[in-house]
């Protein structure tokens, strides 16, 4: 009885330690920039409405990546900065289970594009590790996506909760739009019945020097 007790205790401890470590490791995909917001995101506190851009970076259109970029799932494609919650994320290609363990994933599908195209960019992240604070974002806040030599500045227009099965979120858009998705409720343990959606429109593009 004593031996079994010890065995249970040890096994339990190992499971807790292993999953705790994995969870901690996954949260490392987030860099906290609370102390100092990088210079290029200087306008992050301006939450008044800005006009949406119709196309991302006109000059750059000729040099842009093809409609279906040649990435392999899990490749690092850029970064996402959200100064409002003081975080920076590495963004990887694809939104499968393995990619989302690495950090934030960029959705690859017929409905979505990379930020250099006038269309719908979708980024997804785990609720527990990377996108745990999405709920504190407000309309008007800025999201900055660095991709292929440019910084794309998006302004949040809307946030809502929807069913996990909703197929009306990841759809074609003809204007540059950025959508973040994560699971909801935020403090719910286990597979979640809902999704939290943050949708933003492109308001400016700057070239990284």
């Amino acid at each position, binding site marked *: 009885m004593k031996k079994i007790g010890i065995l249970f205790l040890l096994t*339990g401890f190992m499971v*807790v330690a292993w999953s705790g470590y994995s969870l901690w490791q996954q949260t490392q995909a987030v860099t906290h920039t609370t102390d100092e917001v990088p210079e290029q995101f200087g306008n992050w506190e301006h939450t008044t409405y800005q006009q949406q851009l119709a196309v991302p970076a006109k000059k750059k259109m000729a040099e842009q990546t093809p409609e279906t970029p040649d990435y392999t799932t899990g490749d690092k494609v850029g970064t996402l900065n959200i100064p409002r919650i003081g975080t920076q994320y590495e963004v990887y290609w694809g939104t499968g289970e393995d990619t*989302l363990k690495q950090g934030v994933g960029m959705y690859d599908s017929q409905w979505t594009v990379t930020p250099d195209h006038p269309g719908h960019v979708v980024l*997804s992240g785990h609720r*527990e590790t990377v996108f745990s604070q999405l709920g504190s974002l407000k309309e008007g806040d800025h999201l900055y996506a660095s991709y292929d030599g440019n910084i794309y500045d998006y302004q949040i227009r809307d946030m809502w909760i929807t*069913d996990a099965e909703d197929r009306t*979120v*990841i759809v074609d858009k003809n204007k540059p739009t950025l959508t973040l998705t994560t699971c909801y409720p935020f403090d719910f343990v286990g597979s979640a019945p809902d999704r939290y959606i943050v949708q933003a429109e492109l308001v400016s593009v700057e070239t990284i020097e």
Partner: protein
Amino acid sequence: MLKKLVVAVLFLVTLTGMQVSVFAENHGEPPVKELEQQFSDLIYLEPAEDYEVKQYESLDQLEEAYKSIMVWPLADHYLDTYFKEENGNVYLIPTEGPIRLNPDEDYTLERISNDKYELTQEGKNPLRGEYTLTITYSYEAGKWVFGDRMDIVSSTENGGELPDTASSLPNAMAFGGAVMAVGALMLFSRRKSSFTN
């Protein structure tokens, strides 16, 4: 001739009807209208001005009522989404309610197995546009209850699936914790009994 034809058609219709009822002999079809009415009564409770629900004294009491007509995960979902308890009172969270079945309009009721039926109804709603309502009925503990309810708003173009952004790690941690607790309990109870000896 016409009379004979009518009789023949009626005979065929009865026969098909009988066949269907033979297939579903175990529990019959779920009482769609009756369950819908009960669901409606529980979701659209008449609240006081400050959204207090007077008919139920606690969320536990309301939960019991919900669980009498649906499986528990679904009951939890509705309670979490539409109700809250504050200072011992139950309040309705002011929000748009779920889409209800319109029993007088067309719907299809498909038998999945003896204890599972699926109902589908297409409809249009001024707030949400065109939608498809899917209700699954399960036969549990001797009666028909709701197994699942989904209302999906359709768009001209169906988009991509939303990624699964919940990690299983917190579950694994909780499981590990439970195993540790069992282990500790075993050791503790052993020590306790050895003391009494």
